[in-house]
């Protein structure tokens, strides 16, 4: 199937550029450093209210990483093809636009998830070298991983959408950066001014910090799951339509 062929190419292409390794290295470094700092903080202060995981996914470094990682992961997916002209070669092969969009999306999402594997390694190392071992709450870990994956899927789809709009990678990155930042600021809104309950409800519905706060303490909420899946599907559908339109307009 063409999707699988394209997906393999998309995913492996990340490892053929230096940017990918730099982003991976940077992410691992920042994640590792934050993890160490947080573990020390929790130990020194004998802090019992929150786990390391809880603090880790709620502090600004997580957002900083997300806002930088997603544009760097997705900016090239379509822009580069437009710039090099390879899109013409790609779309004159017997493949559908859907296959192309999905392959690019899942390729980018896979790389994004790779960028978060260092956290799993950090947790593993903490288990290995602590005595006594800190408890592992699998439902919390699982839900956090699910939330990061689903929200990652949504933000990656926004990045893929940004990339299909332009042949300039910088513009694609800036677009994606603005999209992700917009969602971040929406979630900060409640700290800035008083908002009524209805609006707050809407904000909580789309706000990743709220979702993560629930996930890291093991509360499973189906609303974010529905939101991320439908929103991602919608953005990908728009992307596919734009890709078709772009080709149709020449």
């Amino acid at each position, binding site marked *: 199937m*063409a999707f699988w*062929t*394209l997906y393999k*190419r998309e995913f492996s*292409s990340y490892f*053929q*550029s230096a940017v990918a390794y730099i982003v991976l290295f940077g992410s691992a470094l920042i994640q590792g450093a934050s993890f160490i700092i947080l573990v020390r903080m929790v130990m020194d202060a004998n802090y019992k209210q929150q786990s390391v995981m809880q603090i880790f996914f709620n502090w600004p470094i997580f957002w900083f990483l997300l806002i930088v990682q997603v544009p760097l992961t997705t900016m090239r997916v379509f822009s580069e093809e437009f710039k*090099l*002209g*390879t*899109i*013409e*070669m790609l*779309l*004159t*092969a*017997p*493949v*559908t636009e859907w296959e192309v969009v999905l392959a690019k999306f899942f390729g980018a999402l896979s790389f994004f998830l790779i960028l978060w594997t260092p956290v799993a390694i950090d947790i593993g190392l903490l288990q290995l070298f602590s005595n006594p071992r800190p408890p592992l709450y699998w439902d919390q870990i699982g839900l956090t991983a699910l939330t990061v994956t689903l929200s990652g899927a949504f933000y990656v789809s926004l990045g893929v959408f940004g990339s299909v709009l332009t042949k300039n990678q910088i513009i694609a990155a800036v677009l994606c950066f603005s999209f992700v930042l917009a969602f971040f600021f929406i979630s900060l809104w409640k700290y800035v001014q008083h908002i009524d309950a209805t609006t707050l409800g809407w904000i909580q519905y789309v706000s990743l910090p709220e979702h993560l706060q629930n996930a890291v303490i093991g509360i499973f909420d189906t609303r974010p799951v529905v939101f991320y899946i439908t929103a991602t599907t919608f953005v990908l559908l728009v992307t596919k339509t734009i890709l078709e339109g772009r*080709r*149709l*307009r*020449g």
Partner: protein
Amino acid sequence: MAGNFPLPFFRYMIEVENLSKTYSGFRAVQGISFHVDKGEIVGFLGPNGAGKSTTMKVLAGYLPPTDGKIRIAGYDVVTDSIEVRKRIGYMPENVPLYTDMRVTEFLRFRAELKKVARRKIKERVEQVKERTSLKDVENKIIGTLSKGYRQRVGLADAMVHDPDLLILDEPTIGLDPNQIRAVRDLIKDLGKHHTILLSTHILSEVELTCSRVLVINRGRIEASDTPANLTKLVRGGGSILLEVKASGADVVAQMKALPDVEDVEVLLPGDDGWSHVKIFAKPGVDIREKVYDVVRKNNWLLRELARVKATLEEAFVELTQE
């Protein structure tokens, strides 16, 4: 998608009826019609901006036509795009390639994408590398290859799935004369089993490889014929060079009196009493004997009497100039 039945019988490999393509108000192609038979090698000629690349992009299914109907191997390019694309090997202008991939890796990827059976991929990739002489660079990264090699990678990609029809947009642009010759031989060889539509600016190439020429200018087809017939059509086709010892005016007057002569031009007024003239006859009429009769009757000394064949270049200029 409508009509996914395989159509075993189709008359033409390419059938274009009334194709128009408009880009944001500019009519790049204006209602052209032509067809290409199975097994033909057709050259697509025209000045820059004439609509060659646009037509090829529409045929390859990359751009949709604004108007008109196109069938390739019996399938409609719009409604059965995927079926059409399976049967076409398209090499776009400037050969865009993934510069970060290695040659073999790239060709395998393309073969897989073009639905070559899994067990045949390796064999096909080896075959096309062999035919395009890519063996010595098979493990190199495409970004590091020279223009000539990239062109060959593009050609290898176009033929990797053994398509019925090859559409090659300027396959020899930017190559050195040796490479041009190699590509030309390859195209001739491919033409034994495939139908080929190629565009080029090198007219000698068309004369050597193509069985038919389509001349396109300002979005319209100006001529469709064999290279040999095209050259006969033009004004210079079958013109006669004559050099005799007589005054220019006299020669012109005598020659103009002959039937079928359209024009006589004095080329170089010879100061030693010789006149060099070019006589334009009606297309397709051989007047050499009559010219000789005139020379003999006047007892002129004769130094040259030759028929000049028009080149395709002249035909091209005549057909595409305002």
